[in-house]
Structure formats: C-alpha cells, structure tokens
C-alpha cells in the first residue's frame, strides 16, 4: 500500500540453528544418556514402567503433531492405530512368536498399512468433519475387533510372550527399547521435516493452495503425513501393550489417547518438534501428580488446553522458541536495522 516508513539500514541475515541449538541439542543428548545409563539403576521398577508411558506419550504427541501441526489434519481417531498397534504386537509376539522388539516394529508397519487405505476414506472429509470422521473409523475398528473371537472379543488379550522372563529383565528391556524407539521417532520426525518433503509439508501447512500452485504435491504430502503419523500411533500402542502386558478394546481404542495427544501438542506448542516433548513431560507429570484426584485431572487437562489455545496459542515452547531452537527446522531473518 505504501513505502516502508523506516528503510532498512543494513542487509538482513538469515540463520538456522546456531549456538543456542548446539547447546540445546547437547543438553538433550545428555538427558538421553542419563535416561539410558543412570536412571534405570537408581529408580524403582514401577518408576521405570511409568517412564515407558512417558516415552509412549512423546511418540504419540510427536506423531499427532506431525498430523495436525504439519499436515493440518486434525484426527480425533488416532486411537484406531494405538489399538491396531497393541493388538498387532500381541498377535505377532504370541501367535506368530516374533521377538518382542520385532513385533513392535512390525506393529508400526501394520499401522501404516492400515492407515493408507483408510486415508482415502477420511480424506473425503475436510477440516473439523475429518476430525469426527476419523473418530467414526476408530469406533469401527473397536467394534470390529470386539466381534472377532480370536482377538478375545470384548475382554481383550493378554501378552504371554514374556512368561518365564524375569520381571527385572523384562521391565529393563522394555524401558531401554522404549527409550530407543522414542529417540528414533523424534529424530526421524526431525529429519523428515528438514528434508525436501518436510519443506513441502511446511508450505502445505502455511498455505495449502499456494503450495499446490508452486508444485508441491499436496495430496501426497498429506497422505504421507497421515500414514507416518498413524504408524507412530501404532508403535506407541504396541509399546503400551508391551508394558502393560495386555489390551482390552475399551482402553486401547479409547479416545482418551487422542485427548492426551491433543493436550501434549497444544500445551507444548503445535507445529514444532520441541513442543510435544515439553507437552508430554507436562502431561505425564500432571497425570502423576493429579492421579489421586481421579477424573478431576481430565477436567484440569481440558481447561488447561482451552486456556492455552486461547491465551498462548503457540504453547509453552512458543514462549521460549523466539530465543533458540533445539531442532532447527526453520530459518530466521534478522533485519539489519535496529
């Protein structure tokens, strides 16, 4: 409309990463090393199992963020894949006899394989209606699972592959495996977002039409995100089943998994790699602290989520993200003028 009132006095500089990122990444690596090498020897088995849940929550949050934060796909039905992952793990480990670690990875692949055809169905809906559509799909998965006698019907399945394994060995194995899986999923998401594909996804998120007109394959990008995000949910579901030694259709297909994902991403900061990490820790800590209050903790979570969306829409991470990025995916422009 008009000329800039204050002309820039120097050339702008564009940066990605930087010293803040290096320090942050170093700190994060230190945390992982501590979790791997120190924590298992100083906390109780119960605490380790609880940490496995934290790792699963990080995976759930990270992959839901992939959907909503980068793909613009708000799915309220990711519990479908949590359930598929949980059931797949038990079937593969018990009926097929696969080693547990392989069964978890295969459960992720099965999640992706189920998500691909499903995407053609739910992508017929847009925006908010897609959200409920995915929920319907999850209900169908749950109801169909309950109809299959081989899957235990309404009472679910127990994991028997660990019978005969020492409890300490089992918990330690699950703990280290879950930690490795979490690190792999977060790093994988980071590398995906830094890749050419990720650049296209960011463009789709920011302006779908403009991205399409610039030659970004919008539909393929969104489908990739949906399949990858659902595979992540299936991995988390398999981990949860591995840690809790069983599944019931009511709990593994519960919409509360998606509620957790949404809380984690919204409170942590949507559309950033770091946000879900922060959000998962907050969710997990709240869950531990508020557990004695029963369902009140869900009331608190709901209210906190609403408050964050309205008052700090960039989440907790958004409050510090202006300063540094742990996972530098975006470039920042510093104008030359003061």
């Amino acid at each position, binding site marked *: 409309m008009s000329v800039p009132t204050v002309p820039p006095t120097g050339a702008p500089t564009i940066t990605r990463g930087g010293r803040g990122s290096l320090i942050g990444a170093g700190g994060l690596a230190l945390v992982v090393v501590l979790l791997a090498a120190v924590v298992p020897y100083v906390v109780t088995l119960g605490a380790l199992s609880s940490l496995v849940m934290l790792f699963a929550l990080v995976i759930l949050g990270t992959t839901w963020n992939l959907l909503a934060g980068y793909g613009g796909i*708000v799915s*309220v039905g990711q519990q479908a894949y949590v359930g598929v992952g949980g059931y797949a793990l038990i079937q593969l480990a018990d009926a097929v006899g696969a080693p547990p670690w392989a069964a978890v990875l295969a459960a992720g692949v099965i999640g992706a394989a189920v998500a691909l055809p499903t995407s053609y169905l739910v992508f017929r809906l847009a*925006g908010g209606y897609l959200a*409920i559509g995915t929920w319907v799909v999850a209900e169908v998965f749950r109801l169909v699972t309950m109809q299959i006698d081989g899957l235990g019907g309404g009472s679910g399945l127990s994991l028997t592959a660990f019978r005969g394994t020492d409890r300490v060995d089992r918990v330690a194995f699950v703990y280290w495996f879950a930690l490795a899986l979490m690190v792999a999923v977060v790093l994988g998401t980071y590398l995906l977002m830094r890749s050419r594909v990720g650049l296209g996804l960011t463009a789709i998120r920011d302006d779908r039409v403009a991205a399409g007109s610039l030659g970004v394959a919008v539909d393929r990008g969104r489908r990739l995100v949906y399949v990858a995000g659902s595979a992540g949910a299936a991995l988390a579901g398999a981990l949860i089943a591995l840690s809790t030694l069983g599944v019931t259709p009511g709990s593994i297909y519960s919409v509360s998994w998606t509620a957790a994902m949404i809380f984690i991403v919204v409170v942590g900061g949507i*559309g950033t790699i770091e946000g879900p990490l922060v959000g998962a820790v907050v969710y997990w800590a709240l869950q531990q602290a508020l557990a004695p209050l029963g369902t*009140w903790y869900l009331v608190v979570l709901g209210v906190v989520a*609403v408050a964050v*969306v309205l008052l700090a829409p960039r989440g907790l991470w958004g409050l510090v993200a202006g300063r540094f990025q742990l996972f530098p995916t*975006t470039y920042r422009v510093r104008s030359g003028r003061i």
Partner: protein
Amino acid sequence: MDWLNAGVQGVLLGGQYALLACGLSLIFGVMRIVNLAHGVLAVLAAYLSLFLVQQGLPLWLAVVVVVPVFAALGYAVQRGLFNPALAQVRARGAGGDSRGGGSRGAGELAPLLVSFGVAVALTSLLQEVFSADTRRIPTGDLASAGVPLGPLSVGLLPLITLVVAVAVIAGVQLFLARTPTGRAMRAVADDPGAAALTGVDPRHMYAVATAVAFATLALAGVFVGMSTQFSPGYGDLVLLFAFEAVIIGGLGSLWGTLAGGVVLGVAQTIGAQIDPQSGVLAGHLVFLAVLVVRPGGLLPRSVPA
C-alpha cells in the same frame, strides 16, 4: 414383520438423531466450527432435566427451564470461547505472526481444539458430579406407551420425538429463510466482513446462532435422556450419531439432516435385527459407505445453514 417393525423403529429413531444433528449443522453452517462438545452438552442437558425432575418439577417444566438456560449458555460459550478462537483463525489468515520459531500456533485449528478441550473437561466433570452410572429421565407411562399403526405398535415417545424433530427443523428453516435475523445469519455465514458493513455485528450473530443451536441440542438431550440409558461418556456416541446424520444427509441442508438421521436410524435397527450386537456398527458402516459413494451426502446442498 420383524423387518418392517425394525424399519419403522429406525425411522422414528432417525427423528432423535436429526434433532441432535440440527444444532451441529447450524453452527457449522454459520461459522464453520465443528463443535466436538456437542454430544456431551446434550448429555449435560439430560442430566440437568433429570436433576430438575428429581427436585419435583414436572418434566415439561424442566424442559421449559433447560432450553432457555442452554440458549443463554450457547450465547456465553460463543462470546467467551468460540469467538476468541475464531479470532485466531483470522489472525493467522492475515499472517499476523512474524516472530521466529517456526510455529504459527493453533491458528485455524483453534475452534476445534477449544471445543475438544471443553468436551474432555465437561465429560469428566459430569462423571465427578453424577458418577459413571447410567441414568434415565423418568417419564411414567410415556416410555412404554404405544400407538397402533396397522399391524405394528409404534412407541409413543419415539413418535413424539420425530414430530418434535420435524417441527424444530421446520422452525429453524423458517427462521433462517423468513426473519431479518435469520437473513442476517445467512449473510454472516457468507461474508462476516460485508455483513458488518450492513450493521450486523458478526460476533453477536454467531452467538445468536450458537444460542439457537444449544436450545435445539438441549431439547434433543432431554429426548435422549427419556429414551436411553445415558452416562457422561454417552456424549461421544451422541456426537458421532449427530455427525453421521449431518454427513449422510449432505452438508448445508437441514432437511437433508433429517433424511440422514432416518437413514442412520434404519441402518442401526436393521443391523441390530441381523445381529443384536451390531446395530451401532451397521450405522457406522452405512455412514462410511455413503462417504465412499456420495461424499457430498444424499441430498444436494440447498440453504447454507
């Protein structure tokens, strides 16, 4: 005969679903918000009516109290929660965020996320206050009363529900088509900025739309409470059924929503006739089939609300 009976029951059940779906459809039509708290709010209305009846109020009086209370609640929820969330959609659309860090924030997802937060909090709150036990609003003889229809006997309560659903849909449709406020509501749905230039305050008009939607939803909730054993978690199913009715019928048409409700109801009762465990599943499958075959719904779009 059983099949015919199942079909007729399904049509009547469709009335309840259409009544539930009416408000969901209206809010989406006017401001493109999908209210994920829709179902639990209907269940809240059922609990509120039950509470009033237990205090000794006759049921009709409970309805007379609950419906306006919900209209007021709708107005307040829109002004206090949904309008601020919509403001974020606009802020993002205008590219309002120039700080570094990559994320643009909740943006266009804000209304959906807010309504989901409300749904989670409200469901759990109901569980704390009323426990997870199933309840039913006592209706005396009404629930068991039947009306002979040829060789069949049709439940009086489902029949009343269907009649009320048709009346409510006709009423909302007339309101939108014939009144200045309804016209302004359609104008805001088309272009809120241009509507403001004609003197309409979009935020107020959105709140009026939500008030109307909540009033219909409260009425639907009371009928659900009379005909079904409900619990706090039942809101999830209510949301899914209402949503399926809207999509099957075709977005943007309230009469389509009625047709969608009937299709869903018939699918469920026929499905349950085949296998008593599979009624709800059959409804979901019919919904998904419609999505595959006719993603725009069964009826073409007419009035934009």
